[in-house]
């Protein structure tokens, strides 16, 4: 009782000092703990032949893929804590890397960031919920899947590109001569310099923008439910256009030659027609979004 009185009778400055000291000690111990589980980088190297198949699967974290040498795969995994491990295996030309979350792991401490250097002709399969994911200067097939992950693909040719996300934005730049198929629930899709025999984008609530040239031939199908579609192409583009928004507006500034006379055009909601030699088929569809086709 006496001691209690003594304690409570201490000057306010002493009490404050004790509190500050306790807080500092807590912060210090937290920092030390963090330092103990500081980022750890692990490197894995594999020798492969032509057309290797490489898969990376992580729940949380980024994946970046770039070209390296022709017969080696180098994977650098940066682990944010020891609550997550990296499982890896090689079976012949197939390499599989996966983050393995231990019990009680969340987005903060379960993150693993991957950087890959791979043969340019390899087939690549990437999965990350949070992303971002990027691939550049490759020539093999690419499959990228995520939930919230942003996806960035650049300078890819001769390979098929398949992307599926829930709401992350998707950007493709200079993708040539491959089948491109993109499905998103609400992510925006931006295509710049993307050409090929098939370019297909489907989004629920995301917008779709295309800046390029359809003239090399191919089939281009852009569909969104409530998002807008914006297409920017050169004045001398060669394409057969079909566009319709069920409830939204459509707009174009091309002198289209009518081709599908048997389909009555709904002014303001649809347009059909060709320019040049109609090398490519371009189909733009939205349920309630706006569709705009403009000259560059």
């Amino acid at each position, binding site marked *: 009782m006496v001691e209690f009185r003594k304690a409570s009778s201490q000057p306010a400055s002493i009490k404050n000092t004790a509190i500050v000291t306790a807080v500092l000690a807590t912060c210090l111990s937290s920092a030390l703990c963090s330092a103990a589980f500081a980022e750890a980088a692990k490197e894995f190297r594999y020798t492969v032949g032509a057309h290797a198949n490489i898969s990376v699967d992580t729940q949380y974290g980024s994946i970046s893929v770039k070209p390296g040498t022709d017969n080696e795969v180098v994977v650098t995994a940066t682990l944010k804590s020891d609550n997550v491990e990296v499982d890896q295996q090689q079976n012949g030309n197939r390499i599989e890397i996966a983050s393995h979350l231990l019990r009680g792991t969340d987005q903060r401490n379960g993150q693993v960031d991957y950087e890959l250097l791979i043969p340019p002709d390899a087939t690549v399969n990437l999965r990350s919920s949070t992303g971002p994911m990027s691939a550049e200067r490759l020539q093999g097939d690419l499959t990228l899947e995520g*939930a919230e992950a942003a996806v960035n693909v650049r300078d890819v040719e001769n390979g098929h590109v398949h992307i*599926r996300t829930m709401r992350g934005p998707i950007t493709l730049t200079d993708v040539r001569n491959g089948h491109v198929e993109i499905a998103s629930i609400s992510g925006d899709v931006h295509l710049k310099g993307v050409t090929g025999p098939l370019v297909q984008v489907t989004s629920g609530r995301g917008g779709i923008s295309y800046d390029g040239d359809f003239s090399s031939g191919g089939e281009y199908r852009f569909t969104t439910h409530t998002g807008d579609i914006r297409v920017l192409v050169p004045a001398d583009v060669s394409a057969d256009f079909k566009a319709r928004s069920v409830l939204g507006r459509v707009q174009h500034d091309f002198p289209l030659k009518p081709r599908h006379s*048997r389909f009555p055009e709904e002014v303001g909601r649809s347009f059909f027609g060709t320019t040049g030699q109609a090398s490519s088929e371009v189909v733009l569809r939205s349920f*309630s979004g706006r569709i705009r086709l403009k000259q560059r």
Partner: protein
Amino acid sequence: MTCSDVEQALPELLDGEANGAFPTEVESHLQSCAACSGLVSDLETIAGAARTLAASEEPPPRVWARIALELRAEGLIRDQPADAKLAPGRPILLPTAARRRWSSTAWWLAPVAAALVAGGSYVVSHKPATPVAQNQAPVNAAPSSAPSPAGSAPTTPWQCGLPAQASMQPTVTAQTTVEPEPSADDQQFLSAVSTRAPSMRATYENQLKAVNADILETQAYVDRNPRDAEAREHLMEAYQQKALLYQIALDRIQ
């Protein structure tokens, strides 16, 4: 004879055409209906091309051997041990990350996603019991284009022959504010997300609400404009979006 009659009788008509011309009433309708004549023309082209295809043949054993060789090289299969209980010589499929993931996630989402697409297909293809008035002209048809005759039904997504009032009024706007009730599958889906990836629950729930709202909105429009094939296609795609959401969850939650 209406477009709908022609559409329903098309399979028999095309079969019968191989033995002679179409019946007079059909010919008469085709001459006056650009949409039906175009459809018949397209189907004749497809049927003609299909007839030229060679019958499929069982690939020779060396093809299968070659495929097995490739799969072994890629590490996807390996040979069974000699004392295996299964048929000797039959290769074993090796586990991969993708297959391991399937076994550890909410497996029931897969059939639900498939059912969504199948259900969507049924809803979209289901013909309404009370068609719209058949003598309504397409809206804003270009003066130069051949007007569809009375009673002609749109047959392609790009044919916009909607009733004037229906197509010009965004009648579903009010529907967008309706909060769709989550179905039992939706609740089970959200429950699985809550258990396995609680931090993602709000995100998946919002996406699910959005997709359900899109389905409701489009369904309401299709109910008002049952002959709009394009809108039905959007409805089907809205169901596919929901199936995609389930599939993403299936792949991502662990």
